[in-house]
């Protein structure tokens, strides 16, 4: 299952250039990594959002693999139909290929409006990999808050106002919900740690049942970050504890990034992004503190879960 760079370089691209995602957008980087980590033929369902809109502007398409988009909240339901069709036609002997099924949706399409369809698909056990490319807001409609938006972040529906400076709530822990939902393989990944990401994809597609990947995805447009910072910000997210790398295989937790000397200060991550600029003002110090507390609590919880499930 090892990833060999030399072999990777020779692989045909499954999402080709020419699409209209912004320069520095994490989504296309992630999709290419995901698709190139898989050896089998795949079929992709894609929810409405930046990725879908920017990669298939008729009459063009960037997808070199079969792809379907139908709506925003239903890519998990859509791929569950495709997968059911596959099983039916395979049973009847009309198909004899091994095919893998992927669903890509943004955080809006998974954490929020698509949660029900995702939960249902996972509960029913369709063998597919459900991938959230998580840019922590509704970017396609112009940077509105989602359940994945971190506390304090600016979005256009959680503006940095005088009275309410950024999003007041902490983000929903969707990854944990997917564990509780019974997904057989669940992981968080980041494109800065590409080998980790691609190995997780391999595990996910080889899981005989539903798998869920939550992948950190930069958005220079919405985060107010430079175009050339996709990977450096992704790395900072991991190194400051803004995004944990871990996986849960059949209920067993494994943390994939544990800094020996502790996480870097979250301020480094905050300072690098315009969406958090207001948190550096003295009057908003309490929000930054709350954000730190969110991270700490979540980290301690993860450590405990790792310990308990590996006893």
């Amino acid at each position: 299952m090892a990833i060999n760079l030399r072999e990777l370089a020779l692989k045909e691209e499954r999402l080709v250039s020419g699409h209209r995602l912004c320069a520095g957008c994490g989504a296309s980087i992630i999709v290419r990594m995901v698709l190139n980590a898989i050896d089998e033929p795949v079929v992709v369902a894609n929810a409405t959002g930046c990725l879908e809109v920017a990669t298939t502007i008729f009459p063009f398409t960037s997808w070199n693999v079969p792809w379907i988009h139908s709506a925003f909240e239903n890519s998990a339901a859509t791929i569950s139909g495709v997968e059911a069709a596959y099983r039916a036609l395979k049973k009847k002997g009309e198909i004899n290929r091994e095919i893998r099924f992927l669903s890509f949706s943004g955080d809006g399409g998974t954490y929020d409006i698509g949660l029900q369809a995702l939960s249902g698909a996972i509960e029913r056990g369709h063998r597919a990999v459900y991938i959230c490319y998580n840019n922590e807001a509704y970017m396609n409609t112009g940077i509105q808050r989602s359940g994945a938006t971190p506390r304090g972040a600016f979005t256009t529906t959680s503006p940095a106002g005088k009275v309410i400076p950024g999003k007041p709530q902490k983000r929903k822990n969707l990854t944990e919900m997917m564990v509780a939902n019974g997904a057989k393989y669940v992981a968080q990944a980041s494109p800065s740690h590409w080998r980790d990401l691609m190995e997780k994809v391999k595990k996910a597609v080889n899981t005989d049942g539903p798998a869920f990947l939550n992948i950190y995805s930069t958005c220079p447009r919405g985060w107010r970050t430079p175009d050339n910072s996709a990977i450096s910000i992704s790395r900072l997210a991991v190194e400051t504890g803004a995004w944990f790398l871990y996986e849960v295989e059949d209920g067993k937790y494994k943390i994939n990034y544990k800094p020996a000397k502790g996480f870097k200060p979250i301020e480094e991550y905050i300072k690098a992004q315009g969406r958090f600029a207001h948190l550096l003002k003295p009057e908003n110090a309490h929000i930054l503190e709350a954000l730190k507390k969110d991270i700490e609590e979540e980290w301690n919880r993860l450590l405990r879960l790792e310990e308990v499930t590996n006893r």
Partner: protein
Amino acid sequence: MKTQVRKIAIEGNEAAALAFKQVNPDVVAAYPITPSTEVVQKFSEYVANGEVDTEFVPVESEHSAMSACIGASAAGARVMTSTASQGLALMWEMLYIAASLRLPIIMTVANRALSAPINIHGDHSDAMGARDSGWIQIFSENVQEVYDNIFQAVKIAENENVRLPVMVGYDGFITSHSVETIELLDDDVVRNFVGKYRPKYTLLDVDNPISVGPLALTDSYFEFKVAQAYAIENSLPIIKQVGKEYGDLTGRYYDVIEKYKMDGAEYVIVAMSSTVGTAREVVDALREKGLPVGLLKIRVFRPFPTEDIVNALKDVKVVGILDRSMVPGSFGGPLYHEITSAMYHFDKRPIAQAYVYGLGGRDITTNHIEKVFEELMEIGKKGKPNPLTYIGVRE
């Protein structure tokens, strides 16, 4: 060639499920709702007992039901589902997408009122809310028609020049839960009639990747929609053709409309679904008395059979158009709107009277229909119609 016909006493929903079973589709994704629940239940039994090869997807909502149907159909599977009322309303977004993606999904709808107030009984509000979604809509008068229409729907939907989803409606409770004796087809006859589904492009053809459902902007969206409009228009002769083929096979011929005692009829009622059965009785009785009355049944509402309807009505004096749904804030129901619009350009046309009846399952009896005919005759004398009339309501 007609062999020995098998007959069975069966409820509407069971007949629908039986028809599904005989088609033996690749995928059924469905969610229960009164009054169509038994279709899903019965079909689950067939699946659990290994009587079909179908992959049954017991989804968590109707929105996901239609989404899964869309995914499965785009993957090249023959797909069926059933719903009603709130379920159809929840699917609304996906109905348009199924039609625009040109996916031949078959759906039965046990037509039921829409909330609020919540009400589980029959009217046509659900289907009428979907009338612009691009689906072909067929309405069934009785259990036999439910059964027959499902087979025809498969053949119509999958016709290469159509490739559109088809909705087969029947009245909630009145038809869904009534036991009728119907004639059955043998499985092999059904399978021969519907044939094999062989779509040209599918998601599972991984060597020839396609992108289904792209973004189409100002330069191309309109053409997609017009192509879709032509497809549903062009389905009309195909629906007739399939109805004839089905008649040759079973002796039960189907057209897009049905004229009942329309020869020389001066006062005519237009209706859909089970009410047609009630109206037949009244027409028979009044004809016995020598009154020139007739009945026009609309079986296919989408595509709207404009020419057939206009031709059927052109020599009529007064037509009463019975809608089992309402368009609040307007002057009649959807049938009334469409029929009167269709006749607008013709010099010879009847006076049209709008009726709304039976909302939330309110009974419509032979007495009501007799009164309608009486009113139509008065209107004939008066020379102009009354305002929109509600039948059987306390005002």
